[in-house]
């Protein structure tokens, strides 16, 4: 290091330091204001759609942009489940929420009760041509909280049955029109799966065991038998043990007794298994329709009547407006315009398998001609959501508790009673926690 007179060095460094500080302070100061909610008519939209859904949502956004060139919006996708919902809550609480966001209706009550949503302004919404009459009453009901509309439904996505047409034909399960002969009751279904298994040589039914599918299947079956899991306000565990055991027994028999399904398989594996033709049937949400389209000969029907009902698990996506997201009229107008604009693109969304909530699309000939997507449109009316509780909903602690409990019954690590016992104690623990919401979810 070379010698420098200390004074000169000091002065130069002082100037450098001061300049840097000044610059930084200036930049920091001016940019500090950039942290506030988006100004005037540029809006932010958060969703959790990846994969095929993500691509479809982008398609809808682009169509909206073309129709509204002046609209200035930005769409952001976050990881599905807890990461998305955590960030959504924190952004609302922190004062910089997105202007519009997607939610699952199973989560709506929690977020509305948490007081971080803005109720939808119905007259304002009507200005954009969207009213109550445009939605199925069952779905419209679910979008309410405390008697007020808190979200605008986009779709219902139920748990359905896929089947491989070629495999089923060889197994003698199709009728003369090449449609699946109606299957009802546990024996008929198991028999069908066995026949399909003989054809594929692998499994008869492809079913994810290591994930949420287990809960979704249970919920549908249990509801067909009748009963609730939680009391309406989410404060009591009211599971009908007999019915629960019956449902879970049926499920575990598939993997352990008749062995028509693989007990150790994750989501991706179950999709790949059906997609590669190694399974005759697949129980999953309808959203995988585009995965199979073009690569195999398949069809979709509503989830079968196993125990005397047509109930099946479902959830809905809906648009919400976080509290504080529309501080002025301009932003509000831009937000409502955006939401209703996307809503009117629902047909694109329906191609991804979802049942559109927007009736003008759902009742259109275009949608009805969409096969196999329109096959299960009736499910929108019989769909069962997760029980209402502050800890419940899509990707919630409740679903995790259910999944962790039931998986053991299907893999054989636990007996069915043990599995239900674990479910009971896990959920009871959630119930016993002090509720961190200002009001009850049953409001």
């Amino acid at each position: 290091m070379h010698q420098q007179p200390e004074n000169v060095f000091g002065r130069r460094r002082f100037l450098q330091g001061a300049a840097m500080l000044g610059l930084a302070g200036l930049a920091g100061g001016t940019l500090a204001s950039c942290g506030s909610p988006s100004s005037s008519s540029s809006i932010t939209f958060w969703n959790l759609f990846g994969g095929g859904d993500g691509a479809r949502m982008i398609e809808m956004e682009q169509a909206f942009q073309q129709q509204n060139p002046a609209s200035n919006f930005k769409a952001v996708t976050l990881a599905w489940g807890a990461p998305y919902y955590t960030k959504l809550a924190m952004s609302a609480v922190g004062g910089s929420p997105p202007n519009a966001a997607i939610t699952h209706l199973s989560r709506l009550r929690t977020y509305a009760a948490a007081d971080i949503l803005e109720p939808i302004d119905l007259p304002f919404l009507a200005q954009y041509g969207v009213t109550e009459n445009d939605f199925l009453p069952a779905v419209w009901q679910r979008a309410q909280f405390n008697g007020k509309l808190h979200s605008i439904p986009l779709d219902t996505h139920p748990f359905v049955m896929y089947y491989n047409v070629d495999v089923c034909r060889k197994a003698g399960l199709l009728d003369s029109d090449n449609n699946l002969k109606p299957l009802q009751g546990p024996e008929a279904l198991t028999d069908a799966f066995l026949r399909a298994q003989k054809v594929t040589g692998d499994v008869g039914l492809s079913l994810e065991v290591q994930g949420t599918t287990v809960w979704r299947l249970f919920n549908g079956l249990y509801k067909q038998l009748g009963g609730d899991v939680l009391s309406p306000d989410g404060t009591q565990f009211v599971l009908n043990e007999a019915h629960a055991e019956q449902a879970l027994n049926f499920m575990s028999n598939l993997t352990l007794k008749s062995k028509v399904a693989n007990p150790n398989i994750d989501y991706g594996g179950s999709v790949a298994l059906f997609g590669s033709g190694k399974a005759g049937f697949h129980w999953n949400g309808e959203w995988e329709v585009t995965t199979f389209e073009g690569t195999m000969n398949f069809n979709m029907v509503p989830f079968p009547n196993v125990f005397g009902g047509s109930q099946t698990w479902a959830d809905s996506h809906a648009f919400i407006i976080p509290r504080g997201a529309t501080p002025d009229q301009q932003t509000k107008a831009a937000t409502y315009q955006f939401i209703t604009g996307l809503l009117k693109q629902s047909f694109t969304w329906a191609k991804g398998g979802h049942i559109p909530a927007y009736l003008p699309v759902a009742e259109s000939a275009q949608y009805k001609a969409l096969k196999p997507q329109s096959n299960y449109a009736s499910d929108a009316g019989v769909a069962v959501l997760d029980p209402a509780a502050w800890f419940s909903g899509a990707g919630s602690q409740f679903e995790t508790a259910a999944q962790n409990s039931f998986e053991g019954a299907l893999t054989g690590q636990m007996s069915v009673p043990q599995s239900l016992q674990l479910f009971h104690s896990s959920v009871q623990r959630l119930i016993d926690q002090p509720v961190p919401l200002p009001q009850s979810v049953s409001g």
Partner: protein
Amino acid sequence: MSDTSIQQQVIQHDVSPSLKAYPKRASRWRFDLVGWGFILPLLIAYAIFLLWPILLGLRMSFFNWSLVGSGTNDFLGFGNYAEALSDPDFWSSLWNTIVFTVISTPILVVLSLALALMVNGISRRVQWIYRLAFFAPYTLSVTVMTLIWSWMFEPGFGLLNSVLNSLGLPSVNWLTQPGVAMLSIVLVTVWWTLGFNFLLYLAGLQQISKDMYEASALDGAGWWTQVRHITVPLLNRQTLLILVLQVIASLQLFGQTYLLTSGGPAFSTRPVIEFIYDSGFTNFRVGFAAATSYLFFILILLISLGQFWFLSRQGRNS
């Protein structure tokens, strides 16, 4: 001035500050004013962003404090603490953290020492290549590191499984199989942070005089004896520092698990910090999360103090 000459001066001069230069009769308040003036900026930041949160967190832990809403602050006394202590999820997250620390710490200490020993023994001109190789991962953020490794671990197309398959071995579910997932976390952490310990050891090794080895070799000491009785004791300061830092850093595990496994499968890799994050921010229960934080803080404190005491005793005895 070169750095070594300054440090030579460091050694040679009296280190206590001299008062000789200060005017004898200056009133003490002038010094007080100047002194406090110098430390005030830091003290203010420290008070607002370290001390106050500590106190606030303590207060929050006694209430049913929520992330959302404002009217949910029911007083719970020690309710949150009692719940945490009886919560199996809390204990399992604690267990995961401890398992991770116990497995990764010896590897990170011994492996880094071994590599430092080897690198120390080769020509100085090429040492920089190995220094770069081992330390480069440390310069990456946890996000970049986990992006790279989630691609390595990818079940279908990742490099690891591809190599295994080409050797005729079955694929491994690195991140989704219970048991394996934690080992994968250990693996990436070792890859990521070993460079730091390695550099510390290398610097320490390069301070050890060659004469000590020559002298002991003359006495007939073999290689392993030299390592055990000369090298390791002389690296005591580094080892102490590394062990303490390592254990504390391991206990604070969060990023790797949150980004690679999301605490899964079935929370089998979820460490305490992630449990705190989930409880407070995902499940809105910040009061409960604060209580858990304090329980964990007490544990970390006990472990750190215990370490200091135990290791400095060892250092004195050797």
